[in-house]
């Protein structure tokens, strides 16, 4: 690039940035309070839009001028809906579990009267002398937020708020470099693909850059199909420009002129925000012909997937964009050489691309200083299941699973015992307690039989049956198997049948060996990674929880009392308080009756084992118990 062009890029971006900064400063220093309401999908599900309306109406009624913004997700799903209020003279304060009544209270007490309602706040977002900050909470203190940095703090539908907070600065810098420099930067950063397998991103870019053929394509893979994972959704809903910038940098580095964001169909809000982000970037001259006055022209389009898990696999994804059934093909050739329409195509996960602007901006040193020897940087996890503080967490690689589950996520609810953590969705595995000290990185997970996957993590407690969990995942992969290769199509079906028999108490002990053999064969024989990794949930549970399988088969007993065919609900007469009718009302099938002494009894024939009665029974009685095996249920007198 000649010096003149370099100057032009710098000038054009400086203009954009100064306009954006002006707007941002006036928002922050305008003397008017700002109210940020977290309204990503999970916030909305907890009522964020109602709260937004409540703030709107209350401020209007009180005659206060305030900036009301819908922002993305801070990642603290357990505390949704979250609201951040900045009022001149106060630090920005985070409020959790807000409802319309609290909203009205905050307008009157805080905005009008200047009392920030200490009892309702999660903490202040900035250091100050008067209020405790959120950084005293382990979750905030122990996280390293790189990708989630702007999430929940800026309006995702306003490109200027992104630019004012370092957005597109990486792109501006990259445009002044040679593409080869960018690739070498990425290679040195040691960034590995965040989609699951952990292939070095720099290497993939280099292969694609060297491949012959044009035009080339870049695709952001946001077909987040793992049940139990929502990192990509949150990133795209909270900070779509970050991914867009990463996609553009990738396009520049490999010499592509068009990019596609391949988004899962179940994410309508993310689609809306990505579409808006693309239009705004076009309007700002950051997408289109001769971006910022350079020679680089790039267009991005949004492709909405149609709901097939297998389309997360690169070659299947390409098939589906081409308008065919999303069936994987044999690799090599890899898509980086022969991809979309037979042209070189770079496919990266949303999180991989989102990390790129940070590496460009803060340098390789700052990125490699985070993480372990083989896995650099941070990892975003969706930590859900049986934990107190479920949500989205970004931690440096190398942190242990125990820290993640017990320190950052507050441990297991109701004082239950931790049993296992399921990592990597249907392709991953279940790790038991002894792995709590395992550091998070690609290699250590693989060694333990699990897989980093895209970042879904489901915590299981003593009430979860591992045979049932394996059955659940097999049920999923079996449904989602595309049917192309025999190993996956029939193999997963056979394994599912065996597991179903076991959970129903019809298993045979020799089935365990058959299951193991089938699993190992499918690992080797299946065509794509969906099939190859499908047996992982079975192999890890067989390895670490064989006693549970044996109990199901030999004693017809589910130790976790979870498998419904092997478990019965029973009301202990000695504990039942005869004048209480709580369980009777809660039963959806009228299976609970009185006996002669007015104690409650469950009609086992009618019972659908939904567990409503055990939730309804007042805690001082706790008369409803689960019993497995069925032969131990006392006969009704």
């Amino acid at each position: 690039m000649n010096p003149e062009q370099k100057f032009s890029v710098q000038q054009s971006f400086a203009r954009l940035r100064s306009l954006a900064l002006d707007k941002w400063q006036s928002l922050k220093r305008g003397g008017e309070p700002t109210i940020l309401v977290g309204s990503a999908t999970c916030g909305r599900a907890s009522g964020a839009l109602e709260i937004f309306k409540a703030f709107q109406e209350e401020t209007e009624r009180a005659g206060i001028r305030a900036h009301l913004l819908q922002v993305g997700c801070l990642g603290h799903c357990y505390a949704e809906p979250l609201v951040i209020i900045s009022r001149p003279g106060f630090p920005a304060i985070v409020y959790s579990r807000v409802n319309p009544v609290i909203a009205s209270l905050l307008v009157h007490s805080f905005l009008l009267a200047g009392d920030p309602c200490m009892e309702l706040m999660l903490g202040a977002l900035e250091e100050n002398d008067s209020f405790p900050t959120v950084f005293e909470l382990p979750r905030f203190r122990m996280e390293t937020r790189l990708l989630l940095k702007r999430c929940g703090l800026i309006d995702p539908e306003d490109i200027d708020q992104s630019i004012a907070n370092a957005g597109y600065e990486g792109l501006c810098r990259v445009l002044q470099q040679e593409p080869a420099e960018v690739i070498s930067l990425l290679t040195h950063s040691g960034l590995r693909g965040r989609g699951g397998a952990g292939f070095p991103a720099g290497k993939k870019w280099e292969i694609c850059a060297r491949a012959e053929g044009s035009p080339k394509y870049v695709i952001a893979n946001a077909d987040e199909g793992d049940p139990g994972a929502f990192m990509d959704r949150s990133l795209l809903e909270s900070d779509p420009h970050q991914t867009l910038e990463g996609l553009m940098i990738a396009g520049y580095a490999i010499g592509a002129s068009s990019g596609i964001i391949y988004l899962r169909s179940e994410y309508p809000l993310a689609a809306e925000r990505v579409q808006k982000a693309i239009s705004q970037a076009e309007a700002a001259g950051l997408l289109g012909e001769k971006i910022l006055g350079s020679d680089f022209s790039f267009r991005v389009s949004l492709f909405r997937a149609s709901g097939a898990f297998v389309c997360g696999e690169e070659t299947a994804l390409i098939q589906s964009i081409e308008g065919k059934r999303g069936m994987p093909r044999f690799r090599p050739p890899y898509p980086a050489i022969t991809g979309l329409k037979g042209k070189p195509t770079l496919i990266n996960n949303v999180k991989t691309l989102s990390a790129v602007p940070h590496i460009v901006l803060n340098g390789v040193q700052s990125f490699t200083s985070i993480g372990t020897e083989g896995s650099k940087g941070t990892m975003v996890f969706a930590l859900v299941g049986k934990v107190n503080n479920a949500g989205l967490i970004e931690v440096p690689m190398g942190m242990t699973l125990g820290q993640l589950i017990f320190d950052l996520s507050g441990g297991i609810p109701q004082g239950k015992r931790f049993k296992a953590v399921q990592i990597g969705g249907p392709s991953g595995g279940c790790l038991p307690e002894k792995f709590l000290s395992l550091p998070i990185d690609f290699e250590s997970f693989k060694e333990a039989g699990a897989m980093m996957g895209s970042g879904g993590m489901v915590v299981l407690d003593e009430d979860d049956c591992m045979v049932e969990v394996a059955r659940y995942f097999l049920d999923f992969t079996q449904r989602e198997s595309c049917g192309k290769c025999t190993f996956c199509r029939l193999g997963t079906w056979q394994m599912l049948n065996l597991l179903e028999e076991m959970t129903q108490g019809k298993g045979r002990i020799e089935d365990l060996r058959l299951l193991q053999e089938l699993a190992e064969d499918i690992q080797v024989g299946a065509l794509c990674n969906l099939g190859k990794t499908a047996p992982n949930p079975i192999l890890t549970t067989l390895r670490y929880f064989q006693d549970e399988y044996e109990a199901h088969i030999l004693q017809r007993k589910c130790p976790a009392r979870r498998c419904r065919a092997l478990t019965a609900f029973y009301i202990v007469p000695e504990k039942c308080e005869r004048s209480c009718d709580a369980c009777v009302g809660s039963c959806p099938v009228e299976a609970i009756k009185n006996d002669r002494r007015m104690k409650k009894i469950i009609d086992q024939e009618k019972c659908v084992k939904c567990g409503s009665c055990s939730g309804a029974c007042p805690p001082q009685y706790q008369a409803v118990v689960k019993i497995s095996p069925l032969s131990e249920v006392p006969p009704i007198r």
Partner: protein
Amino acid sequence: MNHFSEKEEKIETFIQDLLRSYPKGPEILIPLLQKIQETLGFLPREAMEKVAVHLDISESEVYGVATFYNQFRFHPPGKHPVKVCMGTACHVKGATVILESWERRLNIKVGQTTADREFSLDRVACVGCCALAPVAVVGEKVHGHMAPTKVDGLLLAFQLEREGKKAP
């Protein structure tokens, strides 16, 4: 059957207008089917036939693609489509029980629509609100922390709404 033919005509004109605004080419097939479903709520057979003619591919190819993906449905959804999330987080918190509660109360099986076309029941892989598990999506609204009694409550609210009363 006057009512039906009128409706068919409406579908016919919609498809024709739509096809005119789309270019030809195999990669347009999925976006086209999505657009049809977005407007009509499902993919009628006639629509798929017209798409095949427009793109110059066989009907079986269109049908093959449409049935491959979970998103497409081939009969009309209910007025209030109910989708029960079967993701991992929901599963460990009892999604099956929730699905069964809907089946029991609506007296239909998953994948079906009630006779009065008010409700349809489907399973979805994951709606990504795992922290609120178990989750059901009714219409556009996500309902978190579902329980069998909450299913009853939601149905009661719809019933009251139909009768023109306000839910308490």
